[in-house]
C-alpha cells in the first residue's frame, strides 16, 4: 500500500500487465511522450515493437485494434481525449462492438481503449465531452470509470485481462488525484460496484469523476445527521444493478450524479432501472444531477456552472429528503 496519483496507478497497471503478458501491444498518438503520464516509460521498457506511436488517424487506429485483436493480440489502444472517440467511432461502433456477435462468437476481442473523458479544465467543448453514455448504448463494448487510484489500478488490470473491448475512461483532471494503492496484483472484477460510504437515508449513485463531489456532499450532510449511502458503480457496462437496487430498497430514495449530458445519460438509465425494479421501495422522486444538454464551455465560471458540483448534489439530496407526497 502506498499513496499514489491515479495516473501512476494506471501506469503501474499497464506496466505490470505488459510484463505479465508478452502478447500485449499498445499504440496510440504520442504514447511514447505520454501526455497524461499513463503510458510513461512503456516504450523504453517494452520497445518500439510493442509500444507504438501512431500518426493522427483515429479512424484507423480504433479499427486496427480490432484487427490485431482478431488476429490474436491483446491490444491497448490509446484514444487520448474522449472526443476523439467520435473521430474513431466507425470501427468502435461498427466493428469492435459487433464483430464477435456477427460471427457467432468465433473470436474474442481483447482490447482496452484508453481515454480521458469529461471536463473541468477549461479545455472547452471539443476536449471535454463525457462519452460513456454513447459507448454504453453500443451494447458491444464494456465501459469502466474508476473513481479512485486504487480502483483505477485494479480495474485497468481487469480491463486488460478481459477478453472483450473495454473502454477505460479516466476522468479529465483527476489524474493527479492521490490515494492508497495496493502493491499486490489486485484485480477488481468488472461489474462490481463499490459502496464508498454506507448510509440509511438515501442512495447516492456517483460515476467516475462525480464520486469525489458526491463524497463531499455526503460528508457535509452527515453534519446535519443525514446519512447518505454513496455507491460508485465503477463499471457502466456491465452494471452492478444488484448493489444499487439493494441500497435503494434499504433507503427508499435515490439521487444520481453523472458528468454526462442529461438526455440518455447513465443517470437516466439507472433511474429508469430503479423505477422499474424497485418502484415499490421508492418513497420520493428519483433525481439526477447531470450536465445540461449543452456543450462544455471554456471560461471557468461557465464550466463550473454546467458541471455537477457539491452544492448541486447537496441540493438534490435535500430536496429528495424533503419531498412529501402531495395531499
Amino acid at each position, binding site marked *: 500500500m502506498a499513496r499514489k496519483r491515479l495516473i501512476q496507478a494506471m501506469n503501474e497497471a499497464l506496466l505490470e500487465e505488459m510484463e505479465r503478458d508478452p502478447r500485449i501491444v499498445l499504440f496510440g498518438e504520442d504514447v511514447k511522450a505520454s501526455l497524461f503520464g499513463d503510458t510513461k516509460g512503456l516504450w523504453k521498457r517494452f520497445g518500439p515493437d510493442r509500444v507504438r506511436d501512431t500518426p493522427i488517424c483515429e479512424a484507423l487506429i480504433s479499427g486496427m485494434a480490432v484487427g490485431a485483436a482478431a488476429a490474436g493480440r491483446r491490444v491497448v489502444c490509446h484514444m487520448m481525449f474522449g472526443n476523439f472517440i467520435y473521430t474513431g467511432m466507425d470501427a468502435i461502433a*461498427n466493428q469492435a462492438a459487433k464483430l464477435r456477435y456477427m460471427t457467432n462468437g468465433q*473470436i474474442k476481442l481483447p482490447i482496452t481503449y484508453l481515454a480521458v473523458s469529461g471536463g473541468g479544465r477549461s479545455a472547452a467543448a471539443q476536449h471535454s465531452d463525457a462519452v460513456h453514455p454513447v459507448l454504453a448504448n453500443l451494447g458491444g463494448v464494456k465501459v469502466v470509470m474508476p473513481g479512485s487510484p486504487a480502483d483505477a489500478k485494479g480495474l485497468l488490470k481487469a480491463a486488460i485481462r478481459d477478453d472483450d473491448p473495454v473502454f477505460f475512461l479516466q476522468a479529465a483532471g483527476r489524474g493527479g488525484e492521490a490515494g492508497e494503492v495496493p502493491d499486490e496484483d489486485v484485480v477488481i472484477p468488472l461489474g462490481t460496484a463499490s459502496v464508498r460510504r454506507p448510509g440509511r437515508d438515501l442512495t447516492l449513485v456517483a460515476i467516475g469523476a462525480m464520486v469525489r463531489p458526491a463524497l463531499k456532499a455526503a460528508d457535509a450532510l452527515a453534519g446535519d445527521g443525514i446519512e447518505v449511502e454513496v455507491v460508485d458503480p465503477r463499471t457502466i457496462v456491465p452494471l*452492478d444493478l444488484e448493489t444499487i437496487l439493494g441500497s435503494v430498497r434499504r433507503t427508499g430514495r435515490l439521487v444520481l450524479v453523472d458528468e454526462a449530458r442529461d438526455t440518455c445519460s447513465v443517470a437516466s438509465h439507472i433511474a429508469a432501472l430503479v423505477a422499474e425494479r424497485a418502484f415499490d421501495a421508492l418513497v420520493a422522486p428519483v433525481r439526477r444531477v447531470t450536465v445540461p444538454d449543452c456543450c462544455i464551455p471554456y471560461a471557468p465560471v461557465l464550466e463550473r456552472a454546467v458541471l455537477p458540483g457539491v452544492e448541486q448534489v447537496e441540493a438534490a439530496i435535500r430536496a429528495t429528503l424533503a419531498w412529501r407526497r402531495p395531499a
Partner: protein
Amino acid sequence: MVAGGSNLPREELLEMYRRMVLIRRMEEQLARDCAAGKLPGPVHLYVGEEAVAVGVCQHLSDRDWITSTHRGHGHFLAKGGDPAGMMAEIYGRADGICGGFGGSMHVADFSKGIIGANGIVGGGIALATGAALAAQLDGDGRVAVCFFGDGAANQGVLMEALNVAALWKLPLLLVCENNGFSEFSPSATVTAGSIAQRARPFGVPAVEVDGNDVVAVWQAANAAVRRAREGQGPSLIEARTYRTRGHVEYEVTFITEPYRDEAEVEAWRGRDPIPRFARRLVAEGLASAAELEAVEGSVARIVAEAVRFAEGSPEPAAATARGHMFATAPRGSAPWPGSG
C-alpha cells in the same frame, strides 16, 4: 508449359479454375434463391470478378488473414471457406458459418483466416492493417490482405492505412477491386484520378492489373505477397474488373432508371474471366474440354450439397438471439428488458 508465361504449375491453374467456377455457381444459385424469395436479406454478387479473389488467395494459407467487403462470397470461398456453411449462413440457418447471426455481408471463418465480409464500405481496411500488425509481431511470415472496392478507395481510412503500413513496413496487401461502380455511381463521377497512384506518395508500390485475367492477378499478388512475407512492407494492387450483375440482387425493384449501358455490360460479359481462362487453358494444352466439364460436375455437386445442407439446417433458436456479445460473461448485467 505454363499459362501466359507464368511459372504456375498445371495443378495450381486448374485449382484456380475450379475455385472461380465454384464461386460463380454458388452465386448463380444465390441469384435464383433471391429471385425465388428464399433469402431473408440483401445479397451483393461477385459475378464477373472471381479472378481477383482467386488469383490473390492462391498465395495464401489458412494462417494468412483476409478482410473482405459487402460483396464477399468470392473472397470467402477463394480463401477456403466452406460452401455449405456459407450457404446456410445466407439462408439464415443455425448451421451457417456464423449461426445465422451475420448473413451474406458478414460471412467469416477465423479458423481459415477469413476476418470476414463487411457491411461498412472501407471497414475492412483498418481491420486488415491491425491483422498485419499482429502478423508482423508474430514474425512468422504471415500476411494480411484487404479486398476493397473502388468506391471504398474514397474512404479516407485507406490513406491512413497506407501511411501507417508504409511507416511500419506492415505485411499488408491492399487489393482494390475496381469494378467501375460505387453502387449506382460510375467511378468517373465519384473517384478522381487513379486509385493505384494514391499509394505512391506514401512510397507504397502499386500496380494496375487486368482483374479479369486470373494469371495476371496471380502474378501481381505473387510479387506483393512475397514482398510482404519478406518484411519489405505493403503494396497495392488495383484490379480492373466489372460486375456484370447488379449492385445488389433486387435492385431493379427500386432503381427505376438505368445507370449504365447494356452494351457496356455486354462487352464485359465478353471478357468474363471464367470462359476466358477456360479458353486459355485449352488453347495452351493445359486442360481438355472434358476436364473443365468435370470441374463443372464436381462444383455442381458441391453447390447442390450446400443447398441441401442449408435447407436441412434448422432456423436458429429465438432464445439464443442475444448471441455471443461478450467473451467474458458480464457480471451483474441487467436481464433482458421488456420481460415485465
